[in-house]
């Protein structure tokens, strides 16, 4: 480590740091902005840059009286939980299956799955196919198609191949069947990669909305993301609606008119949608980077 740095290196370091911190700020500030905007009095929400102006939880209160938000939140949670568990379990089982050297036509079977990553029918064939399977306006369209993820399968396969073969072999000699070995030996040992793909899958499920938009049109199955999209676009009419029913939230109409505006509606809805990710992300982040590292090594 050299302690004597030339002047140009020092300048470089400072400029480097500034640029990086600027970008970091740009990544974080929007979150802060919508948070403080959501707890500001509506008409002043968009002028609150550093801290809330006219602190008020009125918009949140009026949101509570709307049943569609709670329902959408529930649907999103349900789809994330069910979808993630199903996908992680079966995808990793497939990954383990594919590592079995003895499988007949193993190479063909493996390629059969890999090919699907590169060739896809497109949106309309997808729509027609799902409809013909009865997966229209059906909760299962959120969780069934995603049960096998080839990308995640590759990650798990790479990991499982690095496990010592002796463990498997001794279990087989003991007469353990495929599923038994998978559940009792492979899964517990693969915790790191399982955690990684669980986090990937869960985030993907929470954020997905196209399946909702194209294949589900009943209000009771609407996900939070799609509801957010509608709120963002209809914020003006929603704000008027909410001002009128503010009484049910225990807020006087005049006060509501001042505090609930399209801006605050938008910002509050955004905050509600990103809260789960914000809470989970700092802890889950290391799993994301690990996953990419494994993928990078393989690639």
């Amino acid at each position, binding site marked *: 480590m050299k302690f004597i740095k030339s002047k140009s290196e020092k300048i470089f370091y400072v400029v480097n740091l500034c640029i990086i911190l600027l970008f970091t700020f740009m990544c974080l500030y929007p979150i802060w*902005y919508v948070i403080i905007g959501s707890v500001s009095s509506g008409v002043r929400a968009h002028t609150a840059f550093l801290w809330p102006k006219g602190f008020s939880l009125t918009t949140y209160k009026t949101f509570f009286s709307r049943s569609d938000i709670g329902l959408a939140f529930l649907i999103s949670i349900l789809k994330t939980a069910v979808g993630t568990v199903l996908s992680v379990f079966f995808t990793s089982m497939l990954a383990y299956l594919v590592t079995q050297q003895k499988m007949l036509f193993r190479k063909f079977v493996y390629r059969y799955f890999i090919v699907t990553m590169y060739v*896809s029918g497109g949106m309309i064939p997808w729509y027609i196919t799902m409809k013909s399977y009865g997966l229209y306006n059906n909760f299962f369209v959120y969780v069934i198609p995603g049960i096998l993820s080839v990308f995640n399968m590759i990650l798990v396969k790479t990991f499982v191949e690095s496990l010592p073969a002796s463990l498997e072999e001794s279990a087989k000699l003991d007469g353990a069947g495929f599923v038994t070995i998978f559940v009792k030996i492979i899964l517990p040992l693969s915790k790191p990669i399982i955690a990684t793909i669980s986090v990937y899958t869960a985030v993907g499920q929470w954020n997905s909305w196209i399946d909702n938009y194209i294949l589900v049109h009943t209000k009771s199955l609407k996900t939070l993301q*799609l509801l957010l999209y509608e709120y963002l676009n209809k914020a003006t009419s929603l704000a008027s609606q909410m001002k009128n029913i503010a009484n049910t939230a225990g807020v006087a109409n005049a006060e509501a008119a001042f505090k609930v505006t399209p801006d605050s509606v938008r910002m509050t809805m955004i905050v509600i949608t990103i809260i789960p990710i914000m809470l989970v992300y700092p802890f889950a982040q290391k799993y994301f980077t690990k996953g990419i590292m494994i993928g990078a090594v393989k690639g």
Partner: protein
Amino acid sequence: MKTAARFRVSSGMKYLLIALPFMIFTFMFSYVPLFGWLIAFTDYTIGTRITALQFTGFSAFTDILKQKNEVLRVTTNSLAMSGLGLLSSPLAALFAIMLNEIKSKKLRQFIQTATTFPNFISWIVVYGFAFSIFSNNGLLNTLLGQLGLPQSSTGLLGDTRYVWVFQLFLQIWKGLGWGAIIYLAAIAGIDQELYEAAEIDGANKFARIRYITIPSLMPTYFVLLILAITNILNNGFDQYFVFYNPMVANKIEVLDYFIYKLAFIMNEMPMSIAVGMIKSFISIALIFLANQASKKIRGTSIF
């Protein structure tokens, strides 16, 4: 001996049988939709029963030729966005190099967590942020107003002059931190002795980056570049759908959006599928070309 031979065969068969349900599932959800391509040759509209379809030959494809101008417009939009994306591809590597120069590990971790966050929110949330900041009453206009500077009348989201650049900006915002991770992993793999030897030989920071770090990242960059080129027509749908509005429609409609529009707004399903088919064939051709190019230049293929 006979018993052993029987055991080996049934073991191989056993795994194949276990694989069968998985293969059937994948067949149902990944291969069956491919048969949907046949519908491009029929007169399907929403609600038509599969059994009541009439064969129409290549009329969907000739319809595409009749709409040549439209197709050219959206293809240009797609190529423009992908092209801009390719031009900005070195940024992720650059960011990784810069981040690597930060001495404090804790600060680096924090920056990594913060800059990879945008990758994990949906484009709808990005739209929410962008609206709050760049619309008429958004942060930017308000700030400009307070500083006495001219404000945009339509907000950036409705400004047709900046569509491509703005969408590119959003893509970079969303993907830079995440894209840098691969390069950070590559940099971590560089032999430290190279740097030490260079320093002893008198190379300063810039020289060390230029002659050691950058060449070490080139293989990774090259592979990612080739993969990006094969996806030149696949811009994705989310972003362009969410930021679509009539004011910027002209510039923001990319091929994937056009496919959606043909099917669900204009009810031209066979034509939509036909466009999708052509796009897929071009993508497959690009993958083959990319593989050949990689073999020639790097000596190994990607796939």
